[in-house]
């Protein structure tokens, strides 16, 4: 017995999404960004780490569309390569948070009882901490490399997803189709993964999209404090953070990476909100 999801639902979803201009804009930004990150080595005109002492702090020109930095490196090329790092941080962090949140939320919602109580109290505790404080403390004690950053952001931002998924499970597990597969003798794992989870994925997808945006912003904040992805590996956060020292004489070092983060985060947010609206049958 299959979960009640139909092809008609998907095309309705696409129609609703296509009718939302802001959501389409978000989708376009996200798609363009993925393309840039995938094609980075071919798109970047220069080696992102090539130092050129004869081209220090040059303003934007045809040769260097975003200018050069204090080591004569081409900012345009650094940003194209930085898109890979920023996207990776966003996707991996948000993916990890989603995975943890879905696992904990599903177990809590499906089994109930003391398991649910324990998981949800732990979630409440984690929600009490200012997330940025926790991230700062752990990153500073460990070492600010990209793996630690992605792990720490992911492990401190799963709570919303866990609550969402639990709530979905609480209502879904009482529905006829779940009761039916249960009475047919399906095991817990099969019920959770094949029947309940697919029906609870809609809000998770929204949370994942918004999580990517949040993680990219968090990395830029960490970079500002010197605890983000460490140079010379370029991330938009650290290009921006390094650029701020020369902001008075070289505006291009701060403007372009700042705009890149802004447009990307905006894109993910608009897409996430669009998906939310498109999935909500009451808003159609």
């Amino acid at each position, binding site marked *: 017995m299959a979960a009640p999801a139909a092809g008609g639902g998907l095309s309705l979803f696409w129609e609703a999404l296509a009718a939302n201009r802001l959501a389409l804009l978000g989708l376009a930004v996200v798609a363009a960004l993925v393309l840039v990150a995938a094609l980075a080595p071919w798109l970047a005109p220069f080696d992102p780490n090539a130092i050129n002492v004869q081209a220090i702090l040059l303003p934007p020109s045809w040769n260097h569309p975003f200018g050069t930095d204090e080591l004569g490196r081409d900012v345009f090329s650094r940003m194209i390569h930085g898109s890979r790092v920023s996207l990776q941080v966003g996707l991996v962090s948000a993916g990890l948070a989603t995975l943890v949140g879905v696992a904990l939320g599903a177990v809590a919602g499906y089994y109930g009882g003391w398991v649910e109580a324990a998981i949800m109290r732990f979630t409440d505790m984690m929600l009490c901490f200012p997330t940025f*404080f926790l991230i700062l403390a752990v990153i500073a004690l460990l070492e600010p490399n990209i793996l630690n950053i992605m792990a720490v952001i992911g492990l401190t931002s799963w709570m919303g997803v866990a609550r969402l998924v639990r709530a979905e499970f609480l209502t879904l597990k009482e529905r006829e189709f779940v009761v039916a597969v249960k009475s047919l003798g399906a095991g817990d794992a099969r019920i959770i993964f094949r029947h309940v989870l697919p029906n609870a994925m809609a809000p998770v997808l929204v949370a994942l999209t918004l999580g990517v945006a949040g993680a990219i912003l968090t990395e830029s904040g960490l970079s500002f404090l010197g605890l983000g992805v460490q140079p010379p590996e370029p991330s938009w956060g650290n290009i921006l953070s390094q650029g701020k020292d020369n902001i008075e004489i070289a505006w291009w070092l*701060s403007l372009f990476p700042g705009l890149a983060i802004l447009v990307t985060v905006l894109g993910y947010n608009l897409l996430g*909100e669009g998906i939310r609206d498109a999935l909500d049958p009451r808003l159609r």
Partner: protein
Amino acid sequence: MGGARLVLIYLAKRLGMMAPLLIGITFISFLVMHLAPGSPTDVMTDLNPKVSDLARERLTKLYGLDQPLHVQYWSWLKRLAVLDFGQSFAPDGRPVLDKIAERLPITVSINVLSLILVLIIALPIGVYSATHKGSLFDQATTLFVFLGFASPTFWLALLAMILFGVHLGWLPISGIKGLNHDQLPFWGQMLDYARHLLLPVLLSALTSLAGLSRYMRANMLEVIRQDYITTARAKGLSERVVIYRHALRNALMPVITILGLSVPGLIGGSVIFESIFAIPGLGKLFFEAVMSRDYPLVMGGLVISAALTLVGNLLADLGYALADPRVRAA
């Protein structure tokens, strides 16, 4: 039973639920600091190469770092019970509680001011967007609030500092008071604070507009679809009365809860604002403590900020219970 009595019972229940949460919070705070490699004596001795192994040992003994973790946790917890957060590892060696207590009011006032601003701006935006869904206003404000949310905060702050502080010279760019603050009359001092806090408060409000206005919009959309709104319209009430009397009240209720939940985000966000504008608040203190591995101060900061969130949530729930009789009965 009287409403006041029900609220009291509700309050007692909520307080009872808070105790285990608080213990859990202390446990996580302790774990975060002690599972990481290295020891606080590393930093002290690194800074001063003349410190011998003997001195290192003495420091370790002094702070009880040679004890097993559960012993350390238990003795820390016992001291927390009487509000003793220990002494900072910083050279001044002052009590953690004092250090946090003098910084906290600054961070709290900035966040309260910015929250008030957010409420004043975001709620009308949310209501109007919902009642005019899909209109130009709806799309424009959606884009605007998301632009605020999507900007890296320190970037926005830097641009604002350069424009208003350096180029236009209208506003001071760092600290919370001017050099001549103490010579000013009372109103002059207030004006001085206002000029220093204007940019941080405005910017922090701008970055958090999106959350509340979108939330309000969604609530309002949900409420105006309800049967009692249809009933109100069917009675022949004007659209104004339906929206502002019947719908708005019900849509505003959940906002109280969101305000309570927003406390940790505001405290966490203060790290960046306070670092940029050189504001001596909790965020800056915490960041400095983290960078110098000041264990007692970091653990104290974590516990106190999480406890503040608990208090914020409690106040929000209490407000909700006072406003909505159904919650009290539950």
